[in-house]
């Protein structure tokens, strides 16, 4: 089974795609400020969450190593049997589709709140989904190649905007460190933040298509280190410029941070560059989630191609967004901060853990598959 024109992915490509997908959440919300204690220690939550993601991902890493080169939908059937395996594959596909839908909602809210306030939702949605569906249609490998370039652009923006904002930095905003919050509270928030790492399922899907000469563990750890470093940088910049007390009151704190750039009354009002990076990043993210969802569906239903699912999936996203209240900021934020950690934990941590347990119980039988 292939994901596009038959080429295998490199480790670098996998890293770039997962980092692009993950960083956009911090790029949009810098969520550490919205978790307790919501003070100057917010950046520590980002550092700690990296450790928890690593711990929580041990089952995924185990499965990815053990079933190297086999798409998840296939090893679900190997481990759980035909019907339960198909059901699991179907649910993972729906999970990816749900997040493609959910990120489309975030995309619309950001665009409508910050730049195109009077443009109707359907106009933004058509533009977004036509591009995303087309990208998914031509293959996940093409999206990944685009991500390779775009993540460099996004990383460049993050570093450049940090440097350009340096004159607005108030380093006193980080003091005192670890006095107004306790380690237990920070760890709980770090676990909660790790629980929002929905892009882990994407990793589980695409790692199966990575060339076997690359190490799964090294790829995952590099991904984790890279996005954790940039997530910390985003949080630190926001905190230094806006202060934690004000940042937690904003819908898009990093966007507001980029608005403050003013060097010599000359370099200013350049936040549109940030918006461009954000728009392209979200297009990559949404199209890759649709593509991954269709790939899992193809492997589950054993169809010839994943392309037949892409247009119906895109239409489904559009219909749900236009027919429901979910684009309301208050509604989708509740999902992010209250329900998302449960959903993500169930699919990303609990389900793979069950698979690992099943693997050890059925180890002898699985030898027939060479596993």
């Amino acid at each position, binding site marked *: 089974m292939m994901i596009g024109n038959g080429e295998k992915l490199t480790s670098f490509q996998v890293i770039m795609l997962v980092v692009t997908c993950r960083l956009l959440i911090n790029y949009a919300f810098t969520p550490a400020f919205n978790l307790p204690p919501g003070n100057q220690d917010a950046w520590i939550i980002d550092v700690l969450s990296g450790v928890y993601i690593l711990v929580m991902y041990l089952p995924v890493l185990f499965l990815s190593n053990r079933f190297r080169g086999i798409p998840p939908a296939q090893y679900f059937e190997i481990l759980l049997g035909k019907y339960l395996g198909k059901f699991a594959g179907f649910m993972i596909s729906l999970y990816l589709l749900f997040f493609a839908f959910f990120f489309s909602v975030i995309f619309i809210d950001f665009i409508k709140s910050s730049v195109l306030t*009077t443009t109707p939702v359907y106009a933004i949605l058509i533009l977004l989904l036509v591009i995303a569906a087309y990208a998914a249609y031509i293959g996940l490998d093409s999206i990944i190649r685009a991500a390779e370039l775009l993540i460099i652009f996004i990383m460049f923006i993050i570093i450049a905007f940090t440097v350009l904002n340096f004159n607005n930095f108030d380093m006193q905003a980080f003091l005192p460190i670890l006095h107004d919050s306790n380690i237990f509270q920070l760890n709980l928030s770090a676990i909660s933040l790790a629980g929002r790492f929905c892009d882990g399922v994407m990793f589980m899907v695409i790692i199966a298509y990575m060339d076997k000469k690359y190490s799964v563990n090294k790829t995952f750890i590099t991904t984790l280190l890279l996005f954790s470093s940039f997530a910390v940088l985003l949080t630190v910049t926001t905190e230094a410029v806006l202060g934690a*007390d004000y940042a937690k009151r904003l819908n898009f704190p990093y966007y507001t941070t980029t608005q403050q750039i003013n060097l010599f009354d000359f370099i200013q009002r350049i936040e549109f560059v940030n918006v461009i990076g954000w728009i392209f990043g979200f297009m990559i993210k949404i199209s890759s989630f649709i593509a991954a969802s269709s790939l899992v569906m193809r492997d589950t239903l054993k169809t010839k191609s994943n392309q037949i699912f892409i247009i119906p999936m895109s239409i489904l996203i559009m219909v749900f967004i236009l027919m429901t209240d979910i684009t309301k900021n208050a509604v989708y934020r509740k999902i992010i901060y209250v329900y998302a950690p449960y959903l993500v934990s169930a699919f990303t941590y609990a389900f793979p853990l069950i698979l690992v347990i099943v693997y050890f119980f059925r180890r002898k039988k699985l030898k027939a598959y060479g596993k």
Partner: protein
Amino acid sequence: MGYHRKKIVLALIIFHIFILSGCWDREELNTMGVAGALAVEEKDGNKELAFEIYNPIREEEGGKEESVKFHRSSGVSFFDAIRNITMSYDKKIFFSHIKVIIVSEETAREGLLGFFDFWTRQHQPRLSTYILVAKDVSPSEVLSSREEMEDSYADYIMSLVKNSKNSGKTVSINILDFLKDFYGKEKQPIVGTILMKEEKQLGEGNKTGNKLYAEGAAVFSGDKLIGFIDGQEARGLNFVTEKMDSGVVVSPSPDEKGENSVEIINSESEYDVDFSGNDVRIKISIRILGALAETNAGVDTREPEIIKEIEKNNSQAVKLEVEHVIKKAQKELKTDIFGLGSSVHRQYPEKWASIKDQWNEFFLNAKIEVNVSTEIPRIGLINIPAGMEERK
């Protein structure tokens, strides 16, 4: 067409969708009123706004139009007032270029949170906009009194605010600074003050005119104005808060026969907090780096001892200024405008957790000691002051 070329063409087409097509949110210059300054006041429970709007059609046949125009509107809320302006003005106000907001004393006393909610909720206004309180004058009057120096009044007031660093007698605070102080709880917000003084006009005989001054600061408790400090007091405040990067301090000469003016080059402050029970002692140490800018006392500035005396007198003058503003903050304004709460927070984080809500009471009773030291490494281009030998 090759596969890669097709992709490039497609990417270009998608890219041009963004940059070439029109959209619902297009803003044409002829339908926008680009505002440069905003005056905010309240009358009879209504919000009254006055805008200085840039006039894009300046030069006309047979005459010269003003570079800016003024428009007023009122409404039940700020946003209502803004939309009501379209009933009397054919353009939609564009907020992104507003450089300065002038608020009336009455509105500031009522509280600014309502205004800030509107300002930060909308996507056009910016947090970098400077805010000033108009003291003893209506903000719309401030906006409409024309000065000759700049085409736009917003630019003129902005220049006054930015140039204030040369005297240190006011503060330049933008909306983000205000909100950080407001939410931070370690320091009460302050904003710059704009005054209008009647003065004799040069070369116009006894004719008088109004002149604007960016001087002093308005002191808030939370979002409500509670009082003012004058220019000299604002300078004392700036010494404590490390905002004095320029300015001039005049002090008596060592022989008390004249004055010496020291130009401030840099000023740094350190705060040392000490708790004994519920008593707070704060030691503020200010270190000034200056240059001798002027002396009319005829002292021999080649003598290191004389320079030491000038340094000592300069330190004493600054100490008096700082002590005066601290006393005013403790006894009259009854609020921490210096941000000493943040030093307590950093040095005694555990203690701060229990006293942060009552910090103001602690501040009022705090024993604050001020130490100032001055260093004058440079005396300018002359070493024998004018007239020194003749005076002997």
